[in-house]
Structure formats: structure tokens, C-alpha cells
């Protein structure tokens, strides 16, 4: 008898794994039937999860932590047994600003060089009484934290030198066009939509800021995860199979068409294909460029929910909510990622399982072999653009070392 799970999602390319698990029969192979609820705001995706309209949801990793910690709402413990993807977002600036900060033709910019040029523009705009304004998809999003991490490391103080506000992804292109915002950090296909309209130019990929930055997770209420443990483990196996299918170039075109369906993203397959194939058109009317691992959904156990990823996000939450480090909160945040569930789901499948559940983030300057549950696995470069590393064993020390 097949089990049924309802999954909430927002129409973004990184909702791909559960969708493809259903569409290609990987879920059915695991005895699962999936149905989907599409929404247009994270608030509604979260409400449906909390009030039982959905069993699991495509969710911003920081929002899962914020919900667990009770920021802006009463605390409800969420669990994330699977990372839906790393990165896949970009920083897009209005064409005039992109030019002013020296965004190069035909390639992505250098994060430090662009950031330093941006600091000059930001200062001039402060002096003119019109601060630069950036749009992010949600306060508790990796987009917000990546953007802020980059700006602060380049000497631009978020909320002081520039403004950062929430703009819903479908309206980002409008907001750039009308001058409501000067730049954005958003997921695909929304950067490409802005590019196609001539409203923006992609200058950086978030993978340049943190090479292996955590993005969306599959989130469930902790209680629901326990009730539906077998179904969730089946879903994890199905999504790993979907991931292998998703990254195979032979399937890119077909998967772009599936995701473009009105039930899912409801957009242009051509634009969706850009993110899937790591081929981005940076400025309207120019040839696509290739940027490896723009999205990262499969290799190197990309879906493994590292505890250190949750802890890094907690560090940024404390930093930008301006709340003091709190060991109890840090421990709660760390419990959101559930490597134990991921391991249990994939034990015996032959899939790669890391030996550890936490790592020093940003510490790999090059390909490195690390221990796996069986043998070793190779992790590629995983660094922050400013060369800092995040040691989860010294969260207060890390926080103290960051520019304010």
C-alpha cells in the first residue's frame, strides 16, 4: 500500500527534487504518492506546514531555524532531514549600477572588486540622502545572509550604509525597473527574468560568496517527522534518485520542461534551463556564460544536512537580528538539521554518507578526501570569498571576529 505525503513549495527552480521524484516515478518506486501545494509567499508555505495542510515543505533554511527559535512567531520545532540544494542564487544589479561598479562583460565579477566599488557608490548615495536599496526574498533567507555577509566583508554596513528590504521574487524585475530597488539577491528564474526585461544584470553568483552555501531544506514539524518517519525516509531515497537524474545533462531539457509546467513553476523552460545547466545570460542580449556549480543539488552528498550549516545560519541570525549569542538557542538551531534521519534513510543503498555530521565550513581550499561511513569521499573546494572559516565549536569567537 502506498503512503501519501503532501509537499508545500514556492515556484522556484530549487523545488525541483521532490517534483522530479514524483514526475519520474522515483517516489512510486519507494511506495510513495506525492501531492503538491504551490503558494506565492513563504508565510503561507509555513502556515500550511504548521497547520497541517502539508506534511513537508520546500523551505528557506534560515526560516526553518527562525521558526524553531520563535523569531517573529511562537516557537514550533521544525526538522530538516534533507538539504534541497546549495546556492543557486545570484546578485543582480540595475544596469546603471552594474556599470558603475565595473561589472565585467561576459563573466561574473570578482566579489571583492565589485564590493569595494559598491562601497564607494553606497557612500555617495548616503551623502546624497538616497541610500542604495536591495531586495531580498525574506528576512530569514540565505539570500539575505549571503548578501549581508558579502556587503559587510567589503566594508558596507547593512542597515546603515544601505537598506535591505523584502521583495517577493515575482516582483523583483518590476522593482528594479521602477527604481524601487537598486539590486537584489534572489533565486532562479527571477534573476534571468530581470535580465530578459533589461531591468537588471547578474554580477555575482552566491556560490562565489560561499562556494557551498546551504539554501533550501525539506522541512517538517518535528512531531510530523516522527509520525511519518518511514514515508520521510522513502522520500529522501526518492529525492536522491531525482538528484542523479537532475544533474545528468541528458535530462536537462526534459526536466526544464517538467518544471515549467503550470502546476509547478509555470514559467519559461528556456529560462529554467539556464539555472539547471549552469549557463547564465548575465546581461540582456549577450551570450550565456558557464559557471560551474551555480546550483548544487547532488554531488558530494550535497543533500546531507550538516549540523554546522544550521549553526552558521544561527550565527548570521544572531548577527543581523542583533541578538546576543545564546548557547541554548544555538543548540536548538543545531538540532533542526537531522543527519540521523538522512543516514538512516540511505543506509545500505550504497549512497555516500559522510563520516562526520559537522565540519569547519569554508575550510577547504581545494579537493580534499574525507572519511565516509564506508571508505572515503572527496569534497571539492568549499570556501568563503573573504577567506574566513567557520568553526562550529567556537561560535562566540566567530561572531566576535566578524565585521559588524
Amino acid at each position, binding site marked *: 500500500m502506498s503512503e501519501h505525503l503532501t509537499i508545500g513549495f514556492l515556484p522556484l527552480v530549487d523545488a525541483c527534487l521532490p517534483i522530479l521524484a514524483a514526475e519520474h516515478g522515483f517516489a512510486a518506486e519507494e511506495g510513495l504518492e506525492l501531492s503538491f501545494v504551490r503558494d506565492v509567499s513563504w*508565510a*503561507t508555505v509555513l*502556515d500550511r506546514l504548521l*497547520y*497541517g495542510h502539508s506534511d513537508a515543505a520546500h523551505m528557506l533554511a534560515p526560516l526553518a531555524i527562525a521558526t524553531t527559535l520563535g523569531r*517573529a*512567531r*511562537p516557537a514550533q520545532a521544525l526538522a530538516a532531514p534533507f538539504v534541497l540544494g546549495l546556492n543557486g542564487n545570484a546578485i543582480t544589479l540595475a544596469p546603471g549600477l552594474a556599470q558603475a561598479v565595473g561589472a565585467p562583460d561576459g563573466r561574473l565579477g570578482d566579489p571583492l572588486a565589485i564590493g569595494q566599488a559598491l562601497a564607494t557608490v553606497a557612500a555617495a548615495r548616503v551623502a546624497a540622502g538616497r541610500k542604495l536599496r536591495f531586495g531580498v526574498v525574506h*528576512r530569514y533567507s540565505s539570500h539575505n545572509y549571503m548578501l549581508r555577509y558579502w556587503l559587510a566583508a567589503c566594508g558596507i554596513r547593512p542597515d546603515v550604509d544601505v537598506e535591505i528590504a523584502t*521583495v517577493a521574487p515575482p516582483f523583483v524585475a518590476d522593482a528594479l525597473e521602477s527604481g524601487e530597488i537598486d539590486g537584489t539577491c534572489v533565486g532562479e528564474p527571477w534573476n534571468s527574468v530581470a535580465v530578459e526585461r533589461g531591468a537588471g544584470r547578474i554580477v555575482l553568483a552566491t556560490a562565489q560568496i560561499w562556494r557551498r552555501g546551504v539554501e533550501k531544506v525539506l522541512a517538517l514539524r518535528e512531531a510530523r517527522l516522527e509520525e511519518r518517519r518511514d514515508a520521510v525516509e522513502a522520500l529522501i531515497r526518492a529525492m536522491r534518485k531525482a538528484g542523479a537524474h537532475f544533474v545528468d545533462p541528458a535530462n536537462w531539457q526534459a526536466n526544464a520542461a517538467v518544471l515549467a509546467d503550470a502546476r509547478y513553476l509555470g514559467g519559461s523552460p528556456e529560462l529554467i534551463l539556464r539555472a539547471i545547466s549552469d549557463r547564465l545570460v548575465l546581461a540582456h542580449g549577450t551570450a550565456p556564460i558557464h559557471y560551474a556549480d551555480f546550483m548544487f543539488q547532488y554531488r558530494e552528498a550535497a543533500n546531507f544536512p550538516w549540523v554546522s550549516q544550521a549553526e552558521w545560519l544561527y550565527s548570521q541570525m544572531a548577527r543581523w537580528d542583533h541578538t546576543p549569542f545564546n548557547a541554548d538557542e544555538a543548540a536548538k538551531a543545531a538540532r533542526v538539521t537531522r543527519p540521523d534521519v538522512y543516514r538512516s534513510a540511505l543506509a545500505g543503498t550504497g549512497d555516500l554518507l559522510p563520516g562526520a555530521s559537522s565540519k569547519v565550513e569554508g575550510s577547504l581550499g581545494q579537493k580534499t578526501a574525507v572519511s565516509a561511513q564506508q571508505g572515503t569521499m572527496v569534497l571539492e573546494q568549499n570556501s568563503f570569498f573573504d577567506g574566513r572559516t567557520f568553526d562550529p565549536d567556537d561560535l562566540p569567537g566567530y561572531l566576535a571576529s566578524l565585521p559588524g
Partner: protein
Amino acid sequence: MRIAIVDESASRASVIREGLAQLDDCELFVLTQRHGLLATIEDIAPDVVLIDLGNPSRDVLEEYFAVSRALSRPIAMFVDRSDEEAIGASIDAGVSAYVVDGLAASRIRPVLDLAVRRFGAFARLQADLDEAKGKLAERDLVDRAKRLLMKSRGLSEPDAYAELRRKAMQSSRRIADIAEAVVTAHDLMKGDE
């Protein structure tokens, strides 16, 4: 009490407004435009904000409530755990409510109950409308199938209809389903024409 109804569907907003108008002592504001939403909310300074779950501005609004000092800080309804059932009902109905800090639950409850009922009523109207549209589409389909049978088998109109009905009864399906099969088969046979 000042109540803002944020809904991009003007017809639904007016149905909600009409419902809430029965409440004593309430001033109602309907906001259907996304543009300038936050500035308008700031001007109104509402005690309660009702917004439909399908509204793409929810995240923007929630952030504003969380960080704005300009308002007397409405906060999410969900903060009041005492009324889980009412909140669940409102999510089921498709509406979320944000309530200014400190407003008594006894004042919120009637507003929310009415909003839920009105959302439900609107959903039923919508369903009726969809059903009526569906019936029209079915009638078109049956007409097309009849014409195909008349042309290809030289039947009169009543005979063509009788044929569809006979087939439907035989296979215990609806006439509209048989008509759809006839039309689909015809489209397939004629190729890309």
C-alpha cells in the same frame, strides 16, 4: 477598531467588507493595490489586518510588522496561542490575520469568525461559478460530438444524441465523457490539421 482588508481580488474584498460591516464600532479599509501597500497601511494604522493566504505581499507585510516602529506594531495572530482552533479555521478558509499587540481576544474573535465565514461564502460562490462554466464547456463538447456523428455517419441530430446516450448507458459513463472521447478520437485521426 480599524480593520484593513488586503486582497488583490476586489470582488472578494468587497464580500469580506460587506460581512464585517455588520460589526459595531469598526472602520473598514480595503486595499487591493500591491503598489504602495506599506505606506497605505502606515497611514491607516489599523488594529487588525486581514490578508488572503494567496497574497504574494504576505512576506513583505510580515517583515514590515516585525521591524517597523512607525506602527503601533501589529503582530501575527499566531502569537496568541490561546485560540489555536480559530487560527486553524482561518488558515483552512484561506485568510490570515495580524492583530495589534494587546488587543483583547474577545474583540478579535468576532472579526475573525466573520472573515472566515465570508471567505467560505466567497469560495462557494467561486465553486458555483466554476461548475456553471464547466457545464457550459460540457454542452459545447456534446454539440461537437453530435455534429461529428451527423457528418460521419449521416445521422439526424436526435439520432446522434441518442447514440451518445446509448453508449454512455452501456458503459455507465457520463454523456459528456463519451462526447469527449468522440472529439478526442476525431482530433487524433485527423492529425495536425
